[in-house]
Every structure is written in C-alpha cells, then in structure tokens.
C-alpha cells in the first residue's frame, strides 16, 4: 500500500531540511529493562529524556538501586563500570519462570521527574513458536533480504518478536529493524512464509551464517513496540494517524518498558540465491 503512495508521490514531491524551534518538555526517567532466559544476561538501562534537538547521547542515571523480585526471591542488579546507567543481573540463581510475574523496583539516588521510586512488572510468555525452515530471498527491486519462516503455528493468540544475527552478531538493534507480529491472520495454521525480517543488502552475503531469533512477547510489549515503530518511522497525511506518545509500563510516568521473553533461534548457512520475486522462495533448513 505504502508503495502505491510512494510511486504517486515520488514523481512530484521534494524534501527540505527546516529549522523548527521546539520547547523542551519536562525531564523524565527512561527505563529499558529486559529479563531473558538462561542464554543471555538480563539488564536494565536508566537514562533521562532530553530536548529533542539536544544532539547529545542520553544522560545516564547512575548509582540507582535496582531489584528484580519473584514471589519471595530478590535479585540485585549491578551497575556496569564500562557503561554508566546500565545495570546487569549476573546472579546465577536467577531463572525465568513461564507465565509467572516478575517485579522491578528502582530506587534513584536523586529524584528524576519528581520521583525517586519507580516500579514495573512483567509476565513471562511461554515460547510457542515452531520453525521448521526459513525462506531467504534477495529482492532486487528493493535491494533487501527478505526472510520468511515456515512452521506450524500453535493454536491460540500469540505475539512474536523477531531479530536476526549474522555470524553470531545481532544486526537488528534498532526499533525499525525488529519485527513484531500478531498471529491473528495465521493462528493455528501451517505458516508458509510470513515475512519476519527485512535486511539491507550489505547486512550479509552468501556464505554467512544467518540466525533468526524468535520470541513470544506479551500483548502489552507487542503494542508498545508496534506503536514505537509508528512514531519512529516517517509519517504522511494520507496514511498516518496523529502522532502520539507511546505509553510504557513503568510507574510514575516514566518512559520505557520492562519486559521479559525467551528466545529460540534457527541458524542456516546462506547459499547462492536466485532473484526470487514472483517465484517460490528458496527454502533453507538445518
């Protein structure tokens, strides 16, 4: 759909950088927190909001006391010395338990946004995605790698998050590179190639080892991520709704989200590829 728009507008439109004086909003705490399964270290990053055109890295919030708890168990996060404002959960007793609720409590040394205590919680969704092969095409029209997955979807509403890594390095750090999907349209069916990643041409080449990382996420995190994608991407008067703030799940009006998920991965070796628009996808399986 957007493609139609681009074609009709591309002929006539032009862009130009403009100066717009903007007021600066009130300072707020920003929390980016993840609890992972056993394969990764869980972490929380604390920063502050800054003026839109501040052109500086986000100011970190250091020396906070951050505790993750589950029922009566508590784990203290330790601030990284190399990355101020990032707190790691390196306690080996920590385990994610499916369908259980984990709490986050943050106590700041100095108040930010009028508060010094912030809270949140997350439920751990069960991992319910089955991948039996991947389709990887290079679409010459768009100069992009298109990655699809095949496998039987388990009946019941699911929300997925997809990331990619190439030769062991994650290549989908930014919000727009990540893909979130709701299985409403293919719930319980054999999934024959839903697009789950679109990567730039230079991200990988034939011979590389490609890994699709798939996670079940909560509906709340799905909504958060898809709304962020709306706000971070370009807008236009034909299709875009009004810009709006994306509400996270941290107390006291802080920005950001605290979430937890487990991840399954599917790795394949990238073989020579034929141009594949309007033809069957090249299937890759282990």
């Amino acid at each position, binding site marked *: 759909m957007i493609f*139609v728009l681009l074609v009709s507008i591309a002929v006539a439109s032009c862009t130009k*950088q403009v100066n717009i004086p903007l*007021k600066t909003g009130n300072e707020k705490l*920003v929390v980016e927190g993840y609890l992972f399964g056993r394969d990764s270290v869980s972490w929380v990053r604390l920063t502050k909001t800054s003026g839109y055109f501040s052109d500086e890295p986000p100011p970190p919030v250091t020396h906070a006391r951050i505790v993750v708890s589950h029922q009566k168990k508590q784990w203290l996060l330790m601030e990284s010395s190399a990355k101020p404002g990032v707190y790691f959960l390196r306690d080996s007793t920590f385990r994610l338990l499916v369908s259980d609720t984990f709490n986050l409590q943050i106590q700041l040394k100095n108040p930010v946004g009028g508060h010094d205590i912030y809270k949140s919680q997350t439920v751990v969704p069960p991992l319910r995605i089955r991948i039996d092969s991947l389709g990887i095409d290079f679409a010459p029209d768009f100069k992009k790698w298109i990655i699809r997955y095949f496998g039987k979807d388990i009946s019941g509403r699911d929300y997925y998050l997809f990331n990619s890594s190439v030769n062991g390095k994650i290549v989908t750090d930014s919000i727009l590179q990540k893909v979130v999907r709701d299985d409403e349209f293919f719930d319980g069916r054999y999934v024959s190639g839903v697009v789950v990643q679109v990567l730039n041409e230079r991200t990988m080449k034939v011979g590389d080892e490609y890994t699709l990382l798939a996670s079940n996420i909560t509906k709340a995190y799905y909504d958060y991520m898809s*709304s962020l994608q709306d706000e971070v991407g370009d807008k236009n008067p034909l299709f875009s709704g009004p810009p709006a703030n994306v509400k996270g799940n941290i107390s006291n009006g802080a920005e950001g989200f605290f979430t937890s998920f487990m991840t399954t991965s599917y790795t394949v070796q990238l073989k020579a590829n034929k141009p594949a628009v*309007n033809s069957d996808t090249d299937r890759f399986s282990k």
Partner: protein
Amino acid sequence: MNTKHDFKQWIILLLAIFFLLPELTIFAQKKNHFTISGYVRDKNSGELLPGATLYVKELKTGTVSNSYGFYSLTIPGGNYHLTYSFVGYQSQTVSISLFQDMLINRELSAVSSRLREVEIKSASARENIRLPQMSVTKMNMKNIAEIPSFMGEVDLVKALQLLPGVKFVAEGSSGMSVRGGGPDQNLILLDEATVYNAGHLMGFFSVFNPDAVQSVKLYKGDMPAAYGGRLSSLVQVRMKEGNNKAFHGQGGIGLVSSRLMFEGPIIKNKASFMVSGRRTYADLFLKLSHDEKLRQNRLYFYDLNTKLNFSLNGNNHFFLSGYFGKDVFKNNFFGMDWGNATGTFRWNHIFNEKLFSNISVIVSRFNYNLGLAADNPRAFLWQSALTDFTLKDNFDWFINPKNKLNFGFSVIYHDFFPGKITGIGKEAVIDEYCLPDNYSLESALYLSNEQKIGKFTLKYGLRVSFFNNLGPATIYHYDADFNVTDSTVYVTKKAFNTYVGIEPRVGIVFRVNKSSSVKASYARNYQYVQQAQNSTAGNPMDIWFPANPNIKPQVGDQVAAGYYQDFKQGAYSFSGELYYKWIHNAIDFKDHANLILNKYLDGQLRTGRGYDYGIELMLKKTSGKLTGWMSYTYSRSFRVIPEINNGEPYPTSYDRPNDFSLTLSYRINPGIRLSMSWVYLTGQPVTFPVSRFLYSHTIVPVYSGRNSYRMADYHRLDLAMIWDLPNKKSKKWHNQLNFSVYNAYNRKNPWVINFQNDPNAPNTTHAEMTYLFGIVPTVTYNFRF
C-alpha cells in the same frame, strides 16, 4: 423493531400520501384564487432551470422554481405582468389574464458574455437576500472552468475550497473540511446518489468530470429538512441533462487526462441523453522517470457519466443517471483498484398545479480491491465494499404565495462490507480472513414550510430520523478500558438496535430593504455513519462504519446569523455570517488506533464533544469585465475527548484560524480571459516532539499536546489564461486553449514535517519538510460543437 413491519408501515404511509394529498391540496384552495404553474427551461438545450424566479409585478410577490425547474403560484384572479428570470439569462415578461388555472412553461435564453454586463440584475444575488436558507452557495460549471486549475483538471471540489468556511484537508487534496468538520461529515450527492469517496489518484483530483456536471450547490450545515445524515455540509452535484433540441459535444485534451462528452435529443423536445467519459494517462509521466521500477507502473483512472431524460407528458418526467469511475494502480508485483458507482432513477410527477413530487430510487457503491499479482506464490486478494440502496419521495406543495411546504421521506439500506482477505497463491500466508458485512437502515420523515410574513420570511421544519442496525451481526461488549469482555450474536435479519433523531431546522430572514437582509438559523443534524480514518488527508482504503449499541450517533447543533447586502443593482454582493457549532458524541480514535481489518473497531473509538465557531465574510462581483470573489474566514475547531490529550481541548487538524482567498477573472476581449486565485491559510496544526529518549538504540520522540504546534502558513497563487481561438471556417466548432500555472511563485508549502535521526550522526536529529508541488504549468485544449 421488526424490519418487515417497518417496511409495511412505510408502504402504507406512501400510499396514503399518494392518494390523499392531491385531494387535500385542491381542497385547500381559496375561492377566486387561481394557480399558474409550469417548468422553466433553457431555450437552447431544453434543460430545466432550478431556482428560476417568477415575479408578479402588480402583487409584488413571486416564487422560485424547485430543484426540478417546476414552479407554482396561487394568486387571486386578475390581469398581471409576470417576469421570469434566472441568473445569466435574459428575463422575460408576459401579460396574462388569470381567471382559471394556467400552465405556463417558459424557455429563457442565456445571455452572451458580451451582454452579461447589462444583465447584472442577477436573480441569484436577490435569492441570497430573500430566502431564509443560510450558508448556501451555488456555482455553475461554466464559472468554475474559469478558475485556474491544477494540472489542467477543472475541479469543482477545488472551487468549493475557495469559498469561506471551506478548507482543503491537505495540499492538492479533494477532501474538504466545512466549518471545522472532517471530510466524512460532508454529504456529497451526485444526482441524489451518495458519493462516498470523491477523490481520484490518492485524492488529488475529484471524481466529478467537468464536462458532465451542470452545477454544484453547497450548504454549510443549515441543510434543508429533506437532507440529513451528515454534520457539516451537503454538496449537491447536478449532472447535465442532455440537450433535447440539438446534438452537441465537447471535450478536451490535457496534460493528465482527455475528455469527451456528447449530448442530444432522442426524441426532440421530449427525450435526451448525455454521455461523458474521461481517462487519465498519469502513467505516461512515470515513463519519463529515470527509475526503471517507476516506469513499470500503471496508474490511471477513468470516469463515465451518463444521463437519460424523458418527458412522457406534461405531468410525468423520468431521469436515469449513472456514474462509474475507477482508479487502477498496477505493476508486476502489486495491484490495486478502487472506485464509485452510482445509479439514480427519478420520476417527477405533477399531481396537480400545486403539488409536485419526485420519487428517487438510488444505488450507490464504493469498493476497493488490492493484492499481489496472481502469479506470485503468496498472492492474496483483499476486497472491501459498501453499498447503499435508497428510496426517496419528496413533495413540494405550493400552498399560496406565502406558504410553500416541502415534505417526504427517505429510506437508505446500508450494506457495509469492511473487508476480506483471501489467499490465492499456493504459499499464501492467509487462508481467508473476513469481517462480516454489517447492515443498517437509515430512514427519515420530514416536513418543512417556508412562510412569508411581511418583511420576514420564516423557514421551519422538522426531520425525524430513524436508524436501525439489522442482523445478522455480532456486537462485542467492552469494559471501561475498551477491552472486549463478551459478545452478543444476532442471527436473524431483524433490527436489534434503534436510534431516533429529532432534527429541527429553522431559519428567519428579515428584509431590511430591497438589497439587504439579516438572517438567523438553527439546525440540528444526526450522523449515523462515519469513516474509520485517522489520517488528515485520507486514502482510498475507506472503511465506513455505522452507529451501533457501542457507538452513539454524532449530533451537531449549529446556530448562525448573517448579514447580506447587494450593491450597484446586484453587481456586487456582500455576505457576512457568524456560526457556532456544538458536536455531541464527537468521534475520534485512540492513539495508535488499528482501524483496518479490525473486528474490534468499536474499541478503537473514543468519544467526547466538539465545538467549532467562526465568522465568514465574502464580497462577490458577478458582472462586468472583472468578476470573482474575495473571502475571509476566521474560525476555530476543537474537540474534547477524555482519553485523548489528557482530556484537554485540542484543535482539530482543520483548525486554521485565518483563511483568505481571492479569485478573479478578467475579460480582456471577447476571446481572452485571464484569471487568478490566491489562497492564504494559517498553517496546519501539528503535534511536534518536545523531548526524546533512547530505546533499543533508537531515538524516540516525546510529543507536545495534540496539535499544539503549527506548520508554516500556507499560501499559493494560481494563474490561468483562457483563449477562445477564432474559427472563421465553422461557426459551430469552438476551440479553446487553457494555460494554467499552479503555484506560480513556487511556494514550498509543507505537506508533512518528519523528524529524523541523522544516520551518520547517531545523536543528531533534524526536521525535514516534504512539499508536493512546485510550480506546475499546464496547457489544455478544449473544444465544443
């Protein structure tokens, strides 16, 4: 309520009206009073002239022909001088001895442009002064064609956008906002049939082919009681009827489209036809592109308009008109098409010299299809449509010179099919995903009288509207946080939900003197169907949805007052109007709403209230070498919805306080006219970021309150020269060249402003403005014979 039962009631009512009323209307006649009635037509084409006036010199009274050119006047017996007049036509005076009812059909001759300077006592100016109807403007296609056009496409919607109180919704868009309302609050009727999507090519052109259109009339909120269902405006577009005296044709070759129209008699003076077509070749421009992918695309639209009309005898007249239009976008990979189709059958019947009726049977449809090319293994087809069937019966009862009654009913059956996706290819991701049709019945009874009392003329009427949701349907229930809790399934076709709207429409005019008047009006409108669209300009993927147990109908109350003055015998006219509008149950959508293919659409809605107010001034010059108008509007438009903008009032996207336009046409000599239009509007309100944060390696904006910033002010100058080429060989064949320049001083008006992260400097952000059209010169060749 049972629908079958409903229909029975309607039919009984209809029969009663048919059989009893004619008797009643004759019975009501006073002794020694006689009726003059008939049609007023154009002498050259035989087309009916609605709004023509009849003036009785001796009694200083008169009447106006109705929307089908029929008039009736009942006065005491005697000898009279009757003057028939119509704007742009030579008046005719006849003397009569009235001692029995008389049928007088008149044909008026259009004045040539050279004579127009003399013929300045324009009827329309006086109509504006005399009638209690407020906030109404009529434009003829002839005048619209003189306004500079975008890419050579004469466009009546763009002409309406130059009127006070009317604004475009985005650069180049044929969507319009009337007095702060959204584009879905305008009832656009083409020969009585609703046009749901009035735009072609993403809305840059309107669906109205200039060759096929006779005139357009805009009512801003104060609609006649016969119409309803929208809060902001009524736009009545009349197609040409077809010349019933001689064959004619016209057409043109332009930069984006070519057009051809034929009209002529089928049976002279009795039956005629008009057929008109238009096809664009926008894709030819794509072929000029350096980009190979763009060159492969096909992008075009076409329109077909046709009208037949047949006069069986003096008392029965039939019209059949149709419109069919389609937009197509296609390439090797993807295809999409969308379009409207409408059909109208009308029967004008004169029961007796005082009672006129029009029955209309109307079908109106809008649909779109899109999908991947059929040879793609993942091909799918996405379809959506909406269809209306309408039955209307409207009566004009010309009781006496002081009272004119209008009444009738209308029933619309809506079938909204929000969408279905079907997987076609063998690897299609979706098997089938379908949202069921929803059905509803929108009906109304109305009665309105126009009454003269000395220097006052009153208009008072009542429209009672009924809205029924019909089964089968599934209605979801929502909790306070708009989460689905439960559902109710209705399996039969019965009505399961009903709303009733009481809609008073009143107006008064006080004639200060012959050339000035003061008016006031109040109108209430109910809107039961609306569009699920939260972008400002809209796109062809229209989804309309009805009121239901979750969604209350939107209600608008508008009060207005105005002053009207003609100068120099009608050569100049001035109007000034003030209005205030309250919207109840105003609909907006939640932040990040998901409106497409969503079963739980009702849960995406947020309702509250709205208020719009403004002052509209217009000075018009209708005769002489220089004609045109100047308009200025100061207006505001706000919504208050608890879940949006923290419940604080926010300006709508159509809130553009200062709006000025100047539209002029100057005749240098009989063959050459120059025209211009200049528009200025306060910048569009927008929501900008006030701070930012980092999440997942990405800069995320934190926004200001909704619409608390504005883009730069909008202004644009368009110029045109219309040159009628001399043709000495043939008197019949006329050639014309139309040169026009859109955005003559190349103003870069912002279409959208995006905030972006500089890819080379991770912490740097900047604002980028996209503007659509720089200076666009075009030439169009037009001909007629």
